[in-house]
């Protein structure tokens, strides 16, 4: 069923009886060409692009719980392509371009809202680094603008420009950055994939891989064996747990990232602001909640919850630049499991096992990558060659010494 304003009006007048399921609850078949493990944003996007862009069929997405219940449903909804390094920037810019046409393509309003993202500058060294980054963005076809303190003050009059411990000395803006209604991304891809024949199978946990003579022929699941020509792991957050079933060790640690939302407030923040020196970033949802976060808790965890010190650290950062926030209330916190990789960048690659593919290591930046990740992964699955924007996301980059380390923190995942 096509969604449209006309349809909404018609249904409103006829008691909303015509709306069907957004996607079918499919039962697993014995065999597929492609089995995608993980019904999150990336998995569903992969299925969608495989079906639509690469004209593949016989595709299943296996989800151990409910689709969209992982990190696509527990992030701070930011999209941007303000990356520095050659291995990253083209990929994230590709993703941003896909976001820009996504809703019309999926026929689903995911509220892609390009209200801009602003990274605050607090020191000369940081300005130098941001200029280098902004130039890298422009050289890669993205947009970037260096804002003066005056411009920032005009746009955000309540920012504590002078009095904070780290005065604001400018900012790097990407006006095409913004936010997207995160749950809608999973639902929109699910609906569009389902319409193209993809089986979305919920409550179907993968318990093992069937590997014969170095080739993966399918997966054991809670609902029986499912054969597959190609098996595509796409479970960021649980990557190590899943790939351990194929006896693989990964360059990944799982960490908890907390995020927060305030009570609903009348509009105050037009776009996204990041305050790097204070470990705080914030946007305001269309509902009015300030959505904010900061650093990961910093220790390995699969618990999907964090602890007080980071909550305090994040709010300290918030109060330092928005001293009016003292009287706003934090409504809810939540935690997601991050695949923190050894250089802070993801992996989209074949494994050493034929027929088994891997997508993971997104650190805390997977949401904005959803369309490009799905597209590039579908490209890899369909053609066995990496997509041109994702050629650097290889497993062997660590042994070859070709890390993609945006932050320059080295092989310590919790510092990325």
């Amino acid at each position, binding site marked *: 069923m096509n969604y449209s304003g006309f349809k*909404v009006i018609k249904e409103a007048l006829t008691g909303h009886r015509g709306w069907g399921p957004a996607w079918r609850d499919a039962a697993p078949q014995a065999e597929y060409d492609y089995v995608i493990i993980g019904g999150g944003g990336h998995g569903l996007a992969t299925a969608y692009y495989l079906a639509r862009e690469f004209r593949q069929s016989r595709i299943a997405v296996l989800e151990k719980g409910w689709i969209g219940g992982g990190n696509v449903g527990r992030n701070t909804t930011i999209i941007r392509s303000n990356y520095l390094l050659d291995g990253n920037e083209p990929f994230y810019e590709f993703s941003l371009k896909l976001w820009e046409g996504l809703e019309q393509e999926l026929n689903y309003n995911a509220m892609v809202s390009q209200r801009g993202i602003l990274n605050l500058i607090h020191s000369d060294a940081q300005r130098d680094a941001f200029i280098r980054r902004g*130039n890298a963005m422009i050289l890669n076809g993205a947009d970037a603008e260096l804002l003066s303190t005056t411009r920032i003050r005009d746009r955000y009059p309540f920012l504590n420009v002078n009095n904070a411990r780290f005065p604001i000395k400018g900012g790097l803006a990407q006006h095409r950055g913004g936010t997207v209604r995160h749950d809608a991304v999973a639902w929109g891809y699910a609906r569009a994939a389902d319409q193209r024949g993809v089986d979305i199978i919920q409550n179907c946990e993968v318990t093992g891989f069937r590997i014969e003579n170095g080739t993966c022929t399918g997966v054991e699941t809670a609902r029986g064996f499912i054969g597959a020509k190609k098996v595509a792991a796409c479970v960021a957050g649980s990557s190590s747990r899943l790939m351990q079933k194929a006896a693989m060790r990964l360059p990944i640690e799982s960490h908890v990232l907390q995020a927060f939302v305030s009570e609903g407030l009348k509009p105050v923040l037009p776009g996204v602001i990041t305050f790097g020196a204070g470990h705080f970033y914030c946007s305001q949802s269309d509902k009015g909640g300030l959505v904010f976060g900061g650093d990961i808790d910093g220790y390995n965890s699969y618990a999907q919850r964090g602890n007080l010190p980071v909550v305090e650290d994040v709010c300290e950062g918030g109060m330092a630049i928005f001293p*009016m926030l003292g009287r706003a209330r934090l409504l809810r916190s939540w935690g997601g499991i991050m695949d923190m990789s050894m250089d802070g960048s993801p992996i989209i690659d074949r494994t050493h096992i034929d027929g088994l593919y891997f997508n993971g290591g997104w650190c805390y930046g997977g949401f904005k990558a959803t369309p490009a990740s799905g597209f590039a992964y579908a490209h890899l699955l369909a053609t066995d060659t990496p997509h041109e924007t994702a050629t650097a996301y290889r497993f062997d980059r660590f042994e070859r010494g070709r890390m993609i380390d945006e932050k320059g923190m080295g092989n310590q995942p919790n510092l990325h």
Partner: protein
Amino acid sequence: MTGSNRLEGGLIDRSKPLRFKFDGIGYSGFEGDTLASALLANGVRLMGRSFKYHRPRGPMTAGSEEPNAIVELRSGARKEPNTRATTAELYEGLTANSQNRWPSLKWDAMAVNDQLSNFFAAGFYYKTFMWPAAFWEKVYEPIIRKAAGLGTLSHKPDPDSYDKGFLHCDLLVIGAGPTGLAAALTAGRAGAQVILADEDHLPGGRLNAETFTLGDQTGADWAAAAMAELSSMPNVRVMTRSTVIGAFDHGIYGVVERVSDHLPEPLPGKPRQILWRVYSKRAILAAGATERPIVFENNDRPGIMLASAIRAYANRWGTTPAKQVAIFTNNDDGHRTASDLVAKGVEVVAVIDTRTDAPGSDLYDVIAGGEIDQTWGRLGLTRIEVKMPKGGIRRITCGALGVSGGWNPNVHLTCHQRGRPVWNDAISAFVPGDTLPPGMIPAGAAAGDFSTHGALVSGRKAAQEALADLGIDAKPTDLPQAEDAPVRITPFWHVTRAKRAWVDQQNDVTAKDVKLAHQENFVSVEHLKRYTTLGMATDQGKTSNMAGLAIMAEVAGKSIPEVGTTMFRPPYTPTAMGVFAGRSRDETFRPTRKTPSHKWAEEQGATFVEAGLWLRAQWFPKPGETHWRESVDREVTQTRKSVGICDVTTLGKIDVQGTDAAEFLNRVYCNGFAKLAVGKVRYGLMLREDGIVMDDGTAARLAEDHFVVTTTTANAVPVYRHMEFVRQCLFPDMDVQLISTTEAWAQFAVAGPNSRALLQKIVDPEFDISNDAFPFMACGAVTVCGGLRARLFRISFSGELAFEIAVPTRYGDALIRRLMQAGAEFDVVPYGTEALGVMRIEKGHATGNELNGTITALNLGMDRMVSKKKDSIGSVLSEREGLNEADALKLVGLKPVNPDHTVPAGAHLMTKGTKVSAANDQGYVTSACYSPNLGCHIALAYLKSGDTRMGEVIRLVSPLTGIDHDVEVVSAHFVDPEGDRLRA
């Protein structure tokens, strides 16, 4: 003025009337009132508007679970949006305003949404507003954003302060109702360290809202007596106005104490609120239970409230929302409200009980098997229509309707570590499951034990259990006789034929929305929540989740526990962000570190700059200098010409001692240190294990077994941590000891051709610091100014003949003054970080901008320093191909072809004749400055194969800042490449 709906009795102090304003109209109440109780007493039921349809709303509850009566409290910079009128304590002069309405609460233009609600069903926005694409940000979204949101922030800095603190106890008792008081008495009398926390200012919980007795006392009197005893115990800390907001790992609880929220403004020096981190060995969850509503047609009008709330307003606050009240219930507790109201002289017009076997009453009319069919009243309830059990409709005039759908134990904190509650059929509610936070024992109503007697016994038992775990024997406390009624409930969640029946009243989620979600396959509880926004209101689903689950269960043909439970996450109630930040805001956001010469530099009028937590002098303007460059150029020129002084105390200093000290440095630096002579300094390059440069600095050998290592300012802490890792974890049996001495010594660089001459006036004459006796890279202990112990290093960051002199920090101020005095004859200048930066760029020295975490020794041109003859951190992994590319980036210098051009940091480099694009990127500029010595801008840069491109003219581009011009590749050593000056 006594309010029109004021009743007799209650726990308010009628001798203390208080004036307040709501929406600009003056009212009065009494001490002990909340804003909601005082407004109700004044006959005001309408207090807010709902989120989506802007429907009129009055209070639903009498506590912190309130979803409807939320207001903007106070004004100006203290304005506090979304404040629950039901918990806001009245104080003299309180002002509050309604929110999310325009132009007024009674006449809200956005209420038109309500007329259009059919078009705004759950998830409608996912299906429309997609065309044309550009309209989203420009047209649709701004309208949605403006209509959405609740209260308004002040846009002014919060004027109040906040505190944080840390408390320790054996037992934390969460909630001071009958359960908590019994638990605290039991544990307190046993001598345990007890903290009793309650969100209310008046301990007692429901005891303050009920009429039944404990022994021969009223509930409130018993609670007051228990409190008096607890307050007298030195081992018990009673915390009122203190909400336990979260259960964190290992028995740590977050508790927010509202120190000043009941006052017009905080007392001098006192915080508004305090965030306590409570370290508990055990905790008893005695958080009670919350009554839940029943969903029926137009169940959201002001005046329709939880029955227990109406009871609380009558008994505790001596007020009623209306003179005629009806009750709608599915359980016996609804009848308790009816009889209490009758006793207070309120007319109970009917009790509609969904149970056909409802108990009768001679005090009021009971309609057994009845259901509410419809309600009336635009801005407040005026009439209800009841579907009679035998058919037909009965219209009943009333101004309030108490709804009692049963009680939900307050299990929230049991879920904060992902525990799941379990269903209990006997009370038709979720109770705590067995995956509790370790150390937590739920008791009383929170554990599903709803009678007062049960609460007391349960609290006592929980305390005994908790203390027994800790080896403390707690004697059973004598407990009074108390009410022990059984729970009699027949689940009834919603009137099925209702067309517009509210499940989540704040977010305007209706029963139909839940059904539509099911129809569209948003069946799991997480999908339901996210698709409809059910439970995402400021009450976090406390008043709405159960009904939503029940309706979903019904349409999905499942049981409630099969549909699932929603996760409760911290905080328990919405919590001011300021209190999480505590004192760390404004200037005290982070500590400020000052150098030993800070005060002196201030006197010189220096400009300061943040360097991490340090404040360093950036330059020292002289009278008449109007541009910073004038000052910096002068400082550079004068230093190179004669002598300059710079405070370099911020550099990290680590004392390394032990018989293996040299061997240890061999491991942490990629270059060798074993053969460094005593009295000598060497430059050291430190790699991370992955072969990337971590830091650089010097190591001075003061004795065979004693070195002082310096680090960059930024890396002092991580380098020390790393060295301890190497020492303790990798080479645990090396004889080496480490300690930071950064702060112990005030250290000044004295640089320039006259630096020796100047220092000879300071260093005591018995120390020969001539070039022969104290050559480049010498170090040693000296005394200065007639006997003060000092350390002298002949090292140079500027490239000049230079020394660094260190004295105990307390003499740093005196030394800089003495150095300046002694240097007067040489026209000595102090220089700041800018001049320091210019001179190091002129000399080609790498610093933070160059050591950016992706750079190898090869990139710096120092690959030959990585010794392959010894084991050092990072040497093996630096052999990887990606770190040894043929066209690797190399550190070079850049000069503009046109001397008027700048060479800004952050610009990228392109080979001449190639297209400006990422594919052709040849490198980037790391540091740049104007060089007064060369008379033009210069820069350091990383350039592919840079070492072989000297003299090449390349294109420097910075599209971000609009720069595109030619620069020449030169050696990074702009000044004195042979190093003659520093050996002079």
